[in-house]
C-alpha cells in the first residue's frame, strides 16, 4: 500500500490513500489487469485484492465491464485536468502547437498512472471503439479547434492518431510508461508529420514547451 500523501497538497490521485471502496475496487482491478490481463480479473479476485466484498462491488458497479469503463472515464478526466492546468503561452494556443499541450498532458498522466493507462490502451474493449483510441481522437479534436487550415485527408488524420497510439502502446507493453514524457518529441513528430510535413514536424517537435 502507498503511504499517506505528505504535506504538500496534490491533485494526483496516486499520492492519495484510496478514499472510498469504489476507488479501492478500481485500483485493484487496474493492478490485476496490468499484472495478468483483464481475463484474470474475476469479481472474486478484484474484491479479494481490494479487501472488500462482492456485495460492495455490486453496489458500485453492475459488473466488470462497467468498472473498466469507470477506469477509462476517470483516466480521461485526469488527462483533461492536466491539460487545463498546464500553463500555455500564446503560441501554444494555435494549432498545431496546441497539440503539444494535449500530448504532454496525456504522456504525463500515463507516466503518473501506468496501471489505469494500461487498461485504457491495452485492454480490448468489446464492441465499442477502444478507450485509448477515443482519448487520442479527443485530444486531437480539442487541439485542432484553433486550426485555420482545412482539415487534412482522412488518411493523414488517421495516421497521425494511429502513430501516437502505436508508440504509447509500445512503451506500455514494455513497462516503460515512466519514460514516455521524454518521448514527447517523437510523439509530436509522429502526430504532426501527416499534417505539416517532415521539416515542420521536426522543428515543432524539438521546441521545448515553456511549461516544464
Amino acid at each position: 500500500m502507498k503511504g499517506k500523501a505528505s504535506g504538500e497538497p496534490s491533485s494526483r490521485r496516486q499520492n492519495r490513500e484510496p478514499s472510498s471502496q469504489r476507488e479501492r475496487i478500481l485500483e485493484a482491478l487496474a493492478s490485476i489487469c496490468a499484472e495478468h490481463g483483464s481475463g484474470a480479473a474475476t469479481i472474486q479476485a478484484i474484491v479479494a485484492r481490494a479487501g472488500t466484498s462482492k456485495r460492495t462491488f455490486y453496489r458500485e458497479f453492475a459488473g466488470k465491464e462497467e468498472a473498466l469503463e469507470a477506469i477509462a472515464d476517470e483516466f480521461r478526466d485526469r488527462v483533461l485536468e492536466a491539460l487545463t492546468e498546464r500553463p500555455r503561452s500564446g503560441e501554444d494556443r494555435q494549432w498545431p502547437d496546441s497539440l503539444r499541450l494535449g500530448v504532454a498532458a496525456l504522456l504525463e498522466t500515463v507516466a503518473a498512472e501506468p496501471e489505469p493507462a494500461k487498461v485504457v490502451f491495452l485492454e480490448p474493449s468489446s464492441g465499442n471503439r477502444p478507450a485509448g483510441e477515443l482519448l487520442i481522437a479527443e485530444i486531437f479534436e480539442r487541439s485542432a479547434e484553433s486550426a485555420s487550415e482545412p482539415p487534412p485527408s482522412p488518411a493523414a488524420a488517421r495516421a497521425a492518431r494511429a502513430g501516437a497510439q502505436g508508440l504509447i502502446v509500445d512503451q506500455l507493453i514494455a513497462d516503460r510508461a515512466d519514460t514516455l514524457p521524454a518521448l514527447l518529441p517523437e510523439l509530436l513528430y509522429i502526430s504532426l508529420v501527416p499534417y505539416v510535413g517532415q521539416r515542420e514536424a521536426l522543428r515543432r517537435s524539438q521546441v521545448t514547451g515553456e511549461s516544464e
Partner: protein
Amino acid sequence: MNQEEAPAERLPSGRHRLPREVVLESQRRRIIEAMIASVGTNGYEGTSVADVLERAGVSRATFYEHFSDKLDCFLAAHDSLVDSLLAGVGQVCSGAGDWTARVRSALAGLVERFAAHPGEARVALVEVTATGPDGRRRYRTALQRFTPFLEEGYDHAELRRELSALTLRMAVGSVASILFEEVAAGRAESLPDRVGELTFAALAPLLGPEAAARAAEQDRA
C-alpha cells in the same frame, strides 16, 4: 512455406512406419491450426483445450506432450502465424522495383490474407493482447520483426539524419494500430479498402506526407 499454407492432414492411425518426428510434427501442426481456428472464431477466452483437441483430433495426453497449457499452445500458434505473415510480407518487400510500391503491395497482400482469413487477423492482433502481459509482449515482439522491411526507407529519406531512432517502430506501430482497430471492430473483411491509409501510415514518418500520399494512391498492380 507452401507446406505451412496447406492444412495439416491427419496421418493414418494405428501401426505405420512413419518416423516419430514426423508424427510429432504433424500433431503439433494440427494442434496449432486448431488453436488458430478456434480462437479466430470464438476468441481466446471462449476457447478451451477440449475445443482444440476436438478440432485437431488428438488426445489430451498428446496435447500435453507438446504444450504445457492453453496459453503456451496459443503463444506457439501466434508465433507460427507471425512467421507465416512475415514470410508473405518479406517475399514482396525483397522483390525488385520501386520501394514504395513494394511496401504498398506487401500491405495489400497482408490485408487480403486477413480479409480471406479474418480469424488469423483476430489471433494475430487482438486475441494475443487479450491473453495478458505475456501475450502483449509477444505482440510487441511480432511488430518489431516487421521493422526491417521498412529499413530501406532510410535510403530514400531526405531527412534521414534528423529522424529519431524510433521512426521505423513508430511507422510499424501506426500501421498496427489501424489494423488493430479495424479487426477489433470486426471489419477484417473490408481491410483491403484501407490499403491506401495503411501505406500512408507506413511511409509518412520516413518520406513525408506528399511522397506517402503518392504511394498510397498508386494503382493497384
